C-alpha cells in the first residue's frame, strides 16, 4: 500500500458516504452512525446527532480503537474487528473498515446486536470500496498534485496567519 498522507474528500465522495451511513442507520435501527478516521477526525455522521458532541466522540473513538488494536497485537491478533460496549441505555459498536476508518454505531435496546453486526458487515464493504477509490487518487499521496493551491489555498502569506490568530 502506498503511504496515504492526506485524506481528501470531495462533495461526491461525501454524499456517497453519507448515503451509506443513512442506510446503515435505518436498517440497523440504530440511533446514530459516525465515520471517523484513525487519527480521530470525524469524516461524516448521521442520525440523532443533535445532542451529541461528535468531535469529542471522534477523538475518543480513535483513542479507544487504537488501544483495542494495541491490545489485540499484544495477544497476537492483528486487530479486533468488532468492539462492543453495552450500557444501561446505550450500546456502542466499533468496527474498523479496511484498516483505515472507524465505524461507530450508537444503538439502544431497540436494535438487536446481531442485526447491527449483520448490517455493519454489509455496509463495511461499500464504505471500504469508496475509501479504496478515494485514497487511490494521486492527491492522497504526498507531492503528487497541486489541488489545494488550485482552489485558492496556495501561497499563504504572513497576513493570512496573523488573521487566523487575531480572532482569539
Amino acid at each position, binding site marked *: 500500500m502506498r*503511504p*496515504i*498522507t*492526506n*485524506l*481528501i*474528500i*470531495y*462533495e461526491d*465522495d*461525501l*454524499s456517497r458516504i453519507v448515503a451509506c451511513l443513512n442506510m446503515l442507520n435505518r436498517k440497523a435501527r440504530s440511533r446514530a452512525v459516525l465515520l471517523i*478516521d*484513525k*487519527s*480521530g*477526525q470525524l*469524516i461524516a455522521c448521521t442520525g440523532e446527532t443533535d445532542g451529541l*458532541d461528535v*468531535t*469529542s466522540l471522534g*477523538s*475518543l473513538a*480513535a*483513542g479507544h480503537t*487504537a*488501544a483495542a488494536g*494495541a491490545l489485540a497485537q499484544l495477544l497476537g491478533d492483528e486487530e479486533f474487528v468488532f468492539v462492543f460496549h453495552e450500557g444501561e441505555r446505550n450500546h456502542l459498536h466499533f468496527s474498523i473498515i479496511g484498516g483505515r476508518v472507524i465505524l461507530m454505531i450508537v444503538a439502544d435496546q431497540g436494535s438487536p446486536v446481531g442485526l447491527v453486526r449483520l448490517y455493519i458487515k454489509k455496509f463495511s464493504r461499500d464504505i471500504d470500496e469508496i475509501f479504496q477509490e478515494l485514497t487511490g487518487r494521486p*492527491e492522497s499521496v*504526498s*507531492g503528487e*498534485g*497541486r*489541488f*489545494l*493551491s488550485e*482552489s*485558492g*489555498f*496556495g*501561497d*499563504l502569506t504572513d497576513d*493570512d*496567519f496573523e*488573521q*487566523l*490568530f487575531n*480572532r*482569539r
Partner: protein
Amino acid sequence: MSFINYAAREINCKLVYYGPGLCGKTTNLQFIYKKVDPATKGKLISLATETERTLFFDFLPLELGTVRGFKTRFHLYTVPGQIFYEASRKLILKGVDGVVFVADSQLERMEANIQSIEDMNIHLKEQGIDPVKIALVMQYNKRDLPNIVPIDELQKALNPRNLEWFEAVAPDGIGVFETLKAIAKIVLQELQKKT
C-alpha cells in the same frame, strides 16, 4: 494525516504535544483552552489519573478561522509523558501532522528530555513518519524556575537542527500561543506543498 474536506471546505490537522513527564504539555492545552473564544473551541477532554497525570491523552479541538475560504481546524493532543505509558504514547502519534516538543528546562530533567526525544523518534518511525521531515517546533518550558539550563545548552542538547524554538512559562501563558502559532503555520505550509 491531514483531512481535507472539499465538500465542507475544511482542513483538519492533528498536532501533538510531546515531552517527558511533568514538562507542562497538559498545562499548554489548559492555557489555550482558557484563553480562546468559546465559539472556536470544543471541550477539553483529559484522560488523566487521580493525581492529574495524563493517562492516555488530552484533546482540544480548535477552529482557528478561515484561510482562503477554508475553515482550519486543529486537533491538539498531548501524550502521557511518564515512561511506562510508552504503549499509549505511540498510539497518539497516529496520523500526526505536527509536533510540539515541550522540554523541561530544569537541569535535573535534561536526561528525561533527551530520552523523550529518542522515544519520540522511534515511535514516529513506527508510524511510518520520518522524524527529520515531520513539522516540529521546540518549547523550552518552565523558564521561571531557578535551576534551569541556559538556552544555548538546551539548543545544543535537544535541537541540533535548529528548529524554531520558544521559551515558555506555560501556567502564565508565556510562549504558549507563540508555539502554537509557529507549528500551525509550518503544518499549513507543508500542506500547501504536499497537496
